[in-house]
């Protein structure tokens, strides 16, 4: 099937088999490898991107569902010289170790801050429970999200 989608502000028209997952389009077709695959049961959140402004697990989105959508990946939110405040907070708070969960974590966290009015430790933990991190014990991730929320 043919689909058109915008990724990080650039429009792409692609021919893909119908059973293609959005994460494969992002990683394999567009070679945006910041979005990761950590599981095969939609449990880990490493593949989280924004679709029309909301965080989604891109391994659960089929190509057809992404047709016409506007997608933002970790590569689209900031650069080394102009970090998104959430990226900066992750760095300042040492909220990452191996970095594998980090892009998905940051994308979820941005959605959480943008769409939640009152955030505290427990709402952040609740909001992050779809994203697994095996390295940090979440302590510093929670700290980073609260710090970015403070500044937002």
């Amino acid at each position, binding site marked *: 099937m043919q689909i058109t989608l915008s990724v990080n502000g650039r429009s792409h028209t692609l021919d893909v088999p119908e059973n293609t997952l959005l994460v494969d389009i992002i990683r394999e077709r567009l070679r945006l490898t910041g979005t*990761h695959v950590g599981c095969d*049961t939609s449990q880990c959140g490493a593949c989280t991107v924004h679709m029309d402004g909301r965080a989604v697990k891109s391994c659960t989105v089929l190509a057809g569902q992404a047709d016409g959508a506007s997608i933002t990946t970790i590569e689209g939110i900031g650069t*080394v010289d102009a970090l998104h405040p959430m990226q900066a907070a992750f760095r300042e708070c040492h909220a*990452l*170790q*191996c970095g594998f969960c980090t892009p998905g974590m940051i994308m979820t966290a941005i959605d959480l801050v943008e769409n939640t009015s009152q955030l505290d430790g427990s709402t952040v933990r609740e909001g992050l429970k779809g994203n697994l991190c*095996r*390295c*940090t*014990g979440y302590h510093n991730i929670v700290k980073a999200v609260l710090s970015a929320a403070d500044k937002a």
Partner: protein
Amino acid sequence: MGNPVTGIGAAVVRREDARFITGAGRYTDDIRVEGQAYAVFVRSPYAHARIVEIDCAQASEIPGVVAILTGDDMQADGIGSLPCGWNVTQKDGTDMRVPPHPPLATGHVNYVGDPVAVVVAESLETARQAAEAVAVEFDELPPVVDLATAQVSAEIHAGITHNLAYEWELGDREATDAALAGAAHVTRLDLVNNRLIPNAMEPRAALGIHDAATGEHTLYTTSQNPHLARLILSAFVNVAPEHKLRIIAPDVGGGFGSKIFVYGEETTVIWAARRLRRPVKWTADRSESFLADAHGRDHLTHAELGLDAEGRFVALKVHTVANLGAYLSTFASAVPTYLYGTLLAGQYRTPCIHVEVHGVYTNTAPVDAYRGAGRPEATYVVERIVENAARETGRDPAELRRLNMIRPEDFPYQTPVALVYDTGNYEQSLDRALELADYRGFSERRRQSAANGRRRGIGFACYIEACGLAPSRLAISLGAGVGLYESGEVRFNPTGSVTVFTGTHSHGQGHETTFAQVVSHRLGVPFEAVEVVHGDTGRIEFGLGTYGSRSLAVGGSALVLAADKVIEKGRLIAAHLMESSPDNVDFEDGAYRLKDSNRSMTIQEVAFASYVPGNYPDGLEPGLSEKAFYDPENFTYPAGTHIAEVEVDEQTGVVSLVNFIAVDDFGRIVNPLVVHGQVHGGVAQGVGQALLEVGRYDATGQLLTGTMMDYCLPRADDLPDFVVDTTVTPCTHNPLGVKGCGEAGAIGSPAAVMNAVTDALGVPDLAMPATPEKVWRELRRQREQA
């Protein structure tokens, strides 16, 4: 002096983060090379079976299939068995018994997930399809799954009777038995240390490339120790000669032990790339990680602790059956022996200890080192039984521990189980932890919880670990097949920047930052001018990699030695240039200064002069680059106290961890930000073991916990914020005074949490993990009995 913002001890924000937070990390699966084909493994659906026939006819017909290869093809090409790198000598003096471990199974399969064949195709889709179409005929054999009965079950590997890899012992059996017989009180405890599945967030992956013109093999792979992998693949598995094999471990998404080992899949990939003259790529699905990554723990233990009338420990006797899985993985044999039995003294002056361990084969995934590797199991035994002894004898658990602790004046302390602890101050960590936990306020908190329908419990773990692996001579005398030193190189570039090469590997630990702190501090050059290179056998001379909390203590020490050699050579050059003698030249804060005048020059000026040696000492080689190997004299002994406080919901059985305090002594600290992060992550894994995680097989050997839906990894809302603090007694035998911090969190926390859970429930033991169901059943049992 050093720079307070970037030197040793400063909380420097990590430089590697720049690429990870922007999505620019480069993990193995992110790498794609021209012409690469995709590998998918055909795996055994049975725990134990004979391979009757592998029929690839139909699968080969599928367009896009490049090849389907089996273990027989591999054997025909001379590829050998995957070795175990540590020979454990049994108590009767004979060698342990090791079955062959072909990278692709030949003849028999021995666990569900054992790779049988590999399909290589033009696309991943095609490879998957074809793998489904490979028809393997199996003749099922009775599987051995239950650890408790494995020694009296059918033989898994021909000739390995009782499925026993080894019977191993340490300590004085007679003295221990005698002391127990004379003890005023003996506490007895049967313990299960649950099987864990590591689950680094990045699944294992490999990309093999062979250059037919040069004969060079390049393997990109998710390894914690690329040089070790190269050594094993070259020397034992016969993949390629060492100088024609380059292993690159680029960014690696966590390891926790599971990426130390040389596995069949990675081996197959590099061999297939040569055989097929195509780059071959394999990335594990999470389901494959569950089945075929080495698992951790899985012990059954009986322990007895004797106390005299005053509460002093007189003897500890331990018998453990350790599950090794279907084959002996790379370091599997050492984990329940030398990394376990030797730690059973804990922090205490127990005079007599004896431990016997049976290492047993079962038809389950191989079991090997997982964060802490042997030391969490030892801590669990010691700290659970000490806690029960306090309860049984009516003593305060903190005070019973204090009474028995090795005191500062006892160091160096020779334990009855081989180790010599160099230094520590255990009471100091205990006191600090008690203060942070507000131990005095506990009974009031317990009362309040009870008023809300919750039972509150508190639990301690005063752990010790041996890390900084390892003194080579000692390790080799105990059966290690390799030395466990580390290598490093400090290279001044002509313009004054410094490139540092280390044989350790960072897969989350932050070496690119912390090692740069160490070297810039030592050399007195700006932090920004120091670059750390790791993870590539083509760029780094040699190395043993990262595990056992060894990187800073061993790898960092090698860099200090190399930096010191650089400084000494620089002194000769500086003396020449300043027209003086070397013994008249001081080095401090990056500058050489004459003792008797105010002349000075920076080490960077000296570096430049070394590469442009016009005015230069006679007979001295140009350049300013030095290598060093550091072989530790002893292990390092981080220790500390962890305290957990839990609330148990009477209605649902849900255990909430409401407070967790970790006070650890890691010796000197290079970067507190990184150290605290390591503790947080380790504690989370230990809490996972205590409350959530267990790898479970059914009676036929099918893995019941094969996805993230069935295997419960800790999520953000399962954990509290942690309270982390450190005390410092510097290590006495390495130049940095450091001990290592990577595993402590996972070592102390399971015992602390389970002591709290059993305290809340008022039971002597509950098998980990303390899931709501298990706790609820216990609460119901208590209600019914009341």
